[in-house]
């Protein structure tokens, strides 16, 4: 069960934090494509705060698409998980923030990622582990990219989670049309055919994103395809 949190900062507070992060130009479109989804997640959806970042009952957010984590770091800073000063040194020898995040270095980061196609399997395992311990409140959100969906490991996780009706998992696919061969017929269908519910939203529209992220139903895992136009 997700608990909407009180909005204390407008998203505009993230922008100056984002501009403090330099040195990752290569993945800039990737990073910025996730900003709105991440903001809505951390501002209104996820039941997790710096104070509860180790609480077994917290919601989990797994950034599977580890490329371009600037927006992720900026949102974590805006929400108090990490000091804003960390943003000034991206991937330096003493930096905790690399071009791909490391859960052992960054508070609030649930998984180290970067190699594509690992997050959804870890998310499914996390959801199963919580369920086995009677922790029925937390949801597990996994963010992947449309190009990341090329990796076969995702499809192992999609098929299995659908087959067992793992309804505490939400996959978020940020679709900026970067997959080399595209997804003819759409991305949502890849999930629904496996037994998930799925909704496609405008990845810049916060109300649509919020509705998508809270639109899960009992008995089935849920996918939110967030389309980013013109990226």
């Amino acid at each position, binding site marked *: 069960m997700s608990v909407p949190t009180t909005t204390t900062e407008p998203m505009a507070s993230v922008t100056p934090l984002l501009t403090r992060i330099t040195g990752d130009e290569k993945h800039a479109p990737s990073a910025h494509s996730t900003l709105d989804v991440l903001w809505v997640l951390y501002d209104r959806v996820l039941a997790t705060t710096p104070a509860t970042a180790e609480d077994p009952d917290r919601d989990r957010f797994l950034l599977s698409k580890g490329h371009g984590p600037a927006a992720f770091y900026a949102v974590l800073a805006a929400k108090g998980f990490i000091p804003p000063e960390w943003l000034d040194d991206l991937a330096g020898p003493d930096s905790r923030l690399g071009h791909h995040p490391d859960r052992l270095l960054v508070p609030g980061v649930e998984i180290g990622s970067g190699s594509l196609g690992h997050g959804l399997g870890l998310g499914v*395992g996390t959801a199963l*582990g919580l369920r086995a311990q009677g922790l029925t409140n937390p949801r597990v959100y996994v963010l992947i990219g449309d190009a990341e969906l090329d990796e076969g490991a995702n499809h192992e996780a999609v098929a299995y989670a659908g087959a067992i009706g793992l309804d505490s998992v939400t996959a978020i696919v940020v679709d900026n049309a970067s997959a080399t061969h595209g997804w003819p017929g759409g991305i949502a269908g890849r999930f629904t055919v496996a037994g998930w519910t799925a909704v496609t939203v405008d990845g810049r529209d916060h109300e649509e994103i919020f509705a998508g992220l809270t639109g899960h139903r009992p008995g089935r895992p849920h996918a939110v395809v967030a389309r980013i136009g013109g990226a």
Partner: protein
Amino acid sequence: MRDTFVGTSTALLAEDPRTALVLADISAADFAPAARRHPDRVLNVGIREQLMIGVAGGLALTGLRPIVHSYATFLVDRAYEQIKLDLDHQGVGAVLVSVGASYDAARSGRTHQSPGDVALFDTLGRWTVRVPGHPSEVAPLLRSAVAQDGSVYLRLSSQSNTAGHPGADRLRVLRRGTPGAPLVVAVGPVLDATLTAVAALDVTVAYTHTPRPFDTAGLRELAGREVVLVEPYLAGTSARVVADALADRPHRLLGLGVTEVDLHRYGDPADHARWHGLDAAGLCRSITAFLVPGAG
């Protein structure tokens, strides 16, 4: 060994609510009773080995202790990057239990064989590797693995010695040569063939079921000028460990094990042992040639 593994794992699932089992169809029928009793902790993901390790990583992130099981080639070779990233890089551990060691699945051919699994764990560094040589060694090794938090690889084989040595996590001397005699170290199920092979030679024979961490202190205590390693997986896998441990001493080292050649042959495990020179006659030839130059 697989039967012991199934029985012990089933007991552990009942004893410790922290234990979970992840399968990819292999041995699923054997675990059906456990799955009925613990449906939330016995998880068969289907034939999906990348997911199997990913799920184990996720379970461990929530504080559970996953046991993960399949054929070595699917569990380790196929899912190598998941082991590296979904377990090691996340800072969590698991107990990986394989069957089909090296050429156990001789009749199935190369696709079901994995002589390189232990070498792969050496690229990761922090794994404890257990290679039991007898079914009686399996249960205590599995129990100790599940009771800790680290990463443990338990390599089960259909090959077995006639007697077990359950406590041999350090080098255990089973035959002592004269002072300064060459040391022959046998790991896991190659012990019997090794003892037969060196029956006529003046050597010390030590056994262990735990090649990682290797008992380097025991090695330094026992080793003279010549050391022979007999391992049931890729030849020379422990050569670097032994060479490092003896770096300050002049010594000669022979590493015997499964060769890296894809034989493209079937037959049974005894045939493969012979073809790889791991039967008693082959070991005798190699060890004699090494210890007595010119004798062969």
